[in-house]
């Protein structure tokens, strides 16, 4: 029976003028843009790498591609699905010229060159849609996005698309709290190439982006006169197109105030900053004001006097003088262990009509206590603006000033800090805040006009004060608490070596004690507790514990197929027999409800049950031992506040001798090191964070490191993450032994871990799928840290050939590989696989279309994962948008399966030897239940 359905053509003609909602549905195309490795501009125009050679042939051949757009250095693709667009983008073979260097790269200039970086806050996920309508008499461009700068965006889209401004419409996309400025111009440029069809461009949420600013004085070491700062940058797309935006509203070119500027931003395929203007302003002011201070100190000038000599503007003059007087700059010198810093900004806000000038001058004073604490003791802020939009009361302003200052002094980032939560670690006593008007009147008690731009000099003023106090120059903002602490320690002349010696001795003592304890074959029971008082745990601790549990995938193993979360009962197949996981809900009888924290911690770090029994190391306490105390306590808080469930999973029964649990004591002595993670001080915070997650809670080594005959992870650096087996699947090597044809990079690892798919490697399946599901819920920055750390272990990308070219070459080779066309697997492949997996032909179907030529599993030394997927399919992908694959267990017999496996290997990994023992593995894997 056929049910009459409403005619859907109404959906197809969305945005016909009346309907202002963003288009959706069948006609919506997806765009992706390719950015150069480093984005760089000099405050006027793009000065980064330019393409010397572009080959888009491979990209155009990707199924589902609608258009490949190249305009100057701007490149993008339009496709019917996002994954096709991303895959095609990766296939654009672009080779870049060296970026243009400063015009006068003289030796003297290089000598005085200083580099500053500014980390913009995390950019939120957002998206924009562009629609180029050519139906009417005059073409129109409509852009749906979320921006605070509608008028600027309209002007810029008109300029880059060559349209009159009244033919461009900017509409809200319904999102909030995100800045879609960059993606909006991307969408408009792409949409212009596919008239009549809307194109969506998503800007992925990015970890904090870094802006790098280089400044140098001219040859005579002359500090130029100060003039205004150039305000805001245009969109990345406009810069890359080489569009000239000078003289347009909102973008003025200013003479370089002092020093020549090169600005670049990393990573390149991230949006430059949250908004194209606000943080770029802050970065500029920070770099220039720090540079001015440094140059003055090098030349023995007083920064305030030097500034007064170089500021023409009368308002600025008066303001600087007032602030200096108020702070008694000229009358006093810095106290011992104290420091003062000055910074100034003069910006023009073009978003107001008429444009509004804002002046601000800051003097920050800090004091380093004998205990090493850094106190911001006093802040004097002078502020003036041409218009008086609103008056805020003095208290609000004081708070804003204090907040602006404190935000720059984050705690020393720790390896067990989840996400990007900032809390003050330096004891910031309420600083004395003084507000001054140009006339010199103190405004502490009277309301005054306030503007966010007044806080721009905060970072430079504090950095300059820290230099004055400690002699250490902080050029990366917000400041790294660790560096600051080191600077303070140096100043206080605490001997680093003495501390180190103590540290080493302490470590040795602890290890010896541990050795004695863990050789005891039977450990004492820890008395059960009647009830754990969970009311003492804060919501924050429980949330942190939830993140630890997600990173550790507790619920993946401790939940049976279709069972209640964390009640155990999942059988884990080990070479020694089947181990059933246990109930870890806080049920006192069948779960861990009677476990004190002490018992819980002992199990997690030493592998001892509360009753004293040894646990088998399939429970990865060897990794969990690395957890910090804070994380361990939070995890306990989280688990103990879950719903208790009474459930007794089957008992683990291993054959003798493995059934003798006391034997585990000697196993532990041999193979287990109960040590907390120690960050490597020579590495960055990001690297250490990643290492902590990978080695600790993430217990990646449990599957990805080879195990010896005793079931212990093999020791030694060369075995670390060198590949292993779990649950009948190969866990491929993550170190330099990786067999993937294109080397893993931080970006591809991040994409794989976050979305379950990396277009140049393949999709997460089997036991890795639930891992990705867990990682998708972790803070973005943590997954980024893991990718960063893992990328540092992988073999470096081969310099000889860009990844895109390798990808295209491999796909092309796999298509024209005549040697395989007579193999018996050819017909099987054509019938069963080609519709989704042929590299070049057929319809683009919904879901991922993994490129087999680049698939890591086909290039591996072992056929296991290929056979697993062919037999059992992928019914639970790590990310539902990837689609499913059917299993062919019931339609292909062993011989057909073997033909197909050998064909796949020969066709898609022609440089690798044929696999061995394929028959045995097919027979064995057919008997396995398959991973969900």
């Amino acid at each position, binding site marked *: *029976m*056929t*049910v*009459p*359905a*409403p*005619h*859907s*053509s109404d*959906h197809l003609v969305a945005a016909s003028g009346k309907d202002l909602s963003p288009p*959706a*549905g*069948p*006609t*919506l*195309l997806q765009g992706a843009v390719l950015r150069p490795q480093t984005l760089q501009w000099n405050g006027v125009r793009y000065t980064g790498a330019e393409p010397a050679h572009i080959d888009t042939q491979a990209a155009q051949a990707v199924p*589902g591609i*609608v258009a490949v757009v190249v305009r100057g250095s701007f490149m993008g693709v339009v496709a*019917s*699905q996002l994954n096709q667009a991303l895959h095609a983008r990766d296939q654009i073979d672009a080779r870049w010229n060296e970026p243009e260097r400063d015009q006068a790269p003289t030796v003297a200039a290089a000598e005085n060159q200083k580099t500053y970086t500014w980390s913009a806050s995390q950019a939120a996920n957002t998206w924009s849609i562009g629609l180029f309508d050519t139906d009417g008499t005059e073409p129109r461009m409509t852009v749906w996005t979320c921006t605070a700068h509608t008028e600027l965006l309209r002007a810029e889209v008109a300029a880059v698309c060559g349209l009159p401004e009244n033919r461009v419409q900017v509409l809200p996309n319904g999102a909030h709290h995100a800045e879609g400025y960059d993606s909006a111009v991307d969408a408009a440029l792409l949409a212009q190439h596919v008239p*009549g069809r809307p194109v969506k461009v998503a800007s992925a949420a990015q970890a904090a982006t870094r802006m790098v600013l280089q400044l140098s004085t001219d040859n005579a070491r002359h500090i130029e006169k100060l003039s205004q700062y150039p305000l805001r940058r245009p969109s990345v797309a406009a810069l890359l197109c080489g569009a000239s935006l000078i003289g347009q509203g909102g973008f003025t070119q200013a003479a370089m105030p002092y020093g020549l500027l090169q600005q670049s931003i990393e990573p390149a395929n991230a949006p430059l900053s949250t908004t194209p203007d606000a943080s770029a302003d802050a970065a500029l002011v920070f770099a220039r004001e720090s540079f001015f201070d440094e140059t003055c100190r090098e030349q023995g000038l007083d920064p305030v006097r030097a500034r007064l000599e170089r500021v023409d503007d009368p308002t600025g003059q008066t303001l600087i003088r007032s602030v200096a007087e108020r702070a008694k700059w000229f009358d006093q010198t810095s106290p011992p262990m104290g420091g003062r810093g000055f910074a100034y900004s003069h910006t023009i806000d073009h978003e107001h009509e008429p444009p509004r000038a804002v002046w601000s001058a800051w003097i920050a004073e800090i004091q380093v206590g004998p205990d090493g604490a850094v106190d911001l003791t006093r802040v004097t802020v002078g502020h003036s603006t041409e218009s008086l939009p609103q008056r805020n009361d003095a208290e609000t302003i004081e708070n804003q000033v204090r907040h602006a200052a404190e935000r720059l002094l984050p705690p020393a980032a720790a390896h067990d800090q989840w996400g990007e939560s900032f809390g003050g670690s330096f004891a910031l006593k309420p600083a004395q805040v003084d507000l001054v008007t140009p006339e010199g009147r103190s405004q502490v008690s009277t309301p005054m006009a306030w503007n966010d731009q007044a806080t721009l000099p905060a970072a430079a003023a504090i950095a300059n004060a820290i230099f004055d106090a400690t002699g250490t120059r902080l050029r990366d903002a917000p400041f790294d608490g660790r560096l600051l602490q080191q600077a303070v320690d140096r100043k206080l002349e605490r001997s680093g070596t003495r501390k180190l010696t103590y540290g080493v001795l302490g470590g040795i003592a602890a290890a010896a004690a541990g050795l004695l304890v863990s050789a005891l074959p039977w450990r004492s029971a820890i008395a059960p507790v009647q009830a754990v008082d969970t009311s003492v745990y804060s919501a924050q601790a429980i949330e942190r514990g939830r993140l630890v549990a997600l990173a550790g995938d507790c619920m993946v193993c401790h939940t049976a*197929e*279709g069972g209640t979360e964390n009640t155990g009962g999942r059988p884990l197949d080990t070479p020694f027999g089947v181990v059933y996981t246990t109930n870890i809900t806080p049920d006192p009888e069948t779960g861990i409800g009677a476990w004190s924290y002490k018992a819980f911690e002992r199990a997690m770090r030493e592998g001892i049950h509360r009753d004293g029994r040894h646990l088998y190391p399939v429970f990865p306490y060897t990794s969990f031992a690395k957890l910090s105390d804070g994380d361990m306590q939070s995890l306990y808080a989280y688990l103990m506040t879950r719903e208790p469930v009474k459930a007794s999973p089957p008992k683990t029964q291993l054959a003798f001798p493995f059934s003798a649990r006391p034997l585990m004591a000697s196993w532990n002595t041999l193979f287990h090191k109960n040590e907390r993670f120690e960050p490597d001080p020579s590495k960055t915070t990001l690297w250490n964070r990643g290492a902590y997650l990978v080695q600790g809670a993430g217990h990646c080594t449990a599957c990805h490191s080879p195990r010896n005959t005793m079931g212990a992870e093999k020791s030694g650096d060369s075995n670390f993450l060198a590949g292993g087996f779990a649950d009948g699947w190969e866990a491929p090597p993550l170190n330099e032994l990786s067999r993937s044809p294109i080397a893993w990079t931080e970006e591809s690892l991040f994409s794989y871990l976050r979305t379950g798919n990396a277009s140049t490697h393949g999709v997460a399946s089997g036991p890795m799928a639930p891992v990705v599901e867990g990682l998708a819920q972790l803070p973005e920055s943590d997954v980024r840290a893991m990718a960063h750390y893992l990328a540092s272990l992988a073999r470096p990308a081969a310099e000889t050939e860009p990844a895109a070219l390798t990808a295209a070459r491999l796909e092309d080779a796999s298509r024209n590989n005549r040697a395989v066309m007579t193999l018996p697997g050819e017909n099987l492949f054509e*019938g*069963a696989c*080609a*519709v*989704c997996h042929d590299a070049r*032909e*057929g*319809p*683009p*179907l*919904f*879901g991922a279309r993994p490129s087999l030529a680049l698939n890591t599993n086909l290039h591996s030394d072992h056929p296991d994962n290929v056979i697993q997927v062919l037999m059992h399919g992928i*019914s639970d*992908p790590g990310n*539902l*948008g990837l*689609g*499913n*694959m*059917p299993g*062919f267990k019931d*339609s292909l017999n062993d011989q057909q399966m073997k033909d197909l496996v050998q064909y796949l290997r020969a066709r898609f990994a022609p440089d690798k030897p044929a696999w061995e023992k394929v028959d045995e593995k097919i027979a064995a894997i057919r008997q396995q239940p398959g991973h*969900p």
Partner: protein
Amino acid sequence: MKHSTQIVELEVNGQTHTLEAEPDTPLLYVLRNDLELNGPKFGCGLGECGACTVLVDGVAARSCVLSLKSVAGHRITTLEGLGSPESPGPVQQAFIDQQAAQCGYCLNGMIMTVQALLNRNPHPTEQQIRQELKFNLCRCGTHVEIVAAALQAANTTK
């Protein structure tokens, strides 16, 4: 295998349906058995023949191998969503005009795949049509008429 049903919301042909089903159920079974939309056909059950093709967000999809949970939250269009016997959609009309069927079992897949192509590329060449339909199987040998119908559809749609 999980054998627990869940409440799933599914948007098909512009209408939202609330269903109780196991999340792993193939979309095709839900469309045919629960919603009585029999345009999509069951052919091979392995995504090889194309008889079960529907559109997911305007893109062709083989509904026999796509689980219900994979498409929750997406817009699904079946053959019934392109038009009715009284007023067929342009692609359907072209297939009627060209009488591009013998047994007709593959037609749902042919029509839906051509519609997906036209969504992406309103003016495809014959070569592009052939490439798009390469993995839609027709056992009666009506290929000439099918390509003619697709070309007619490409010329009549705007």
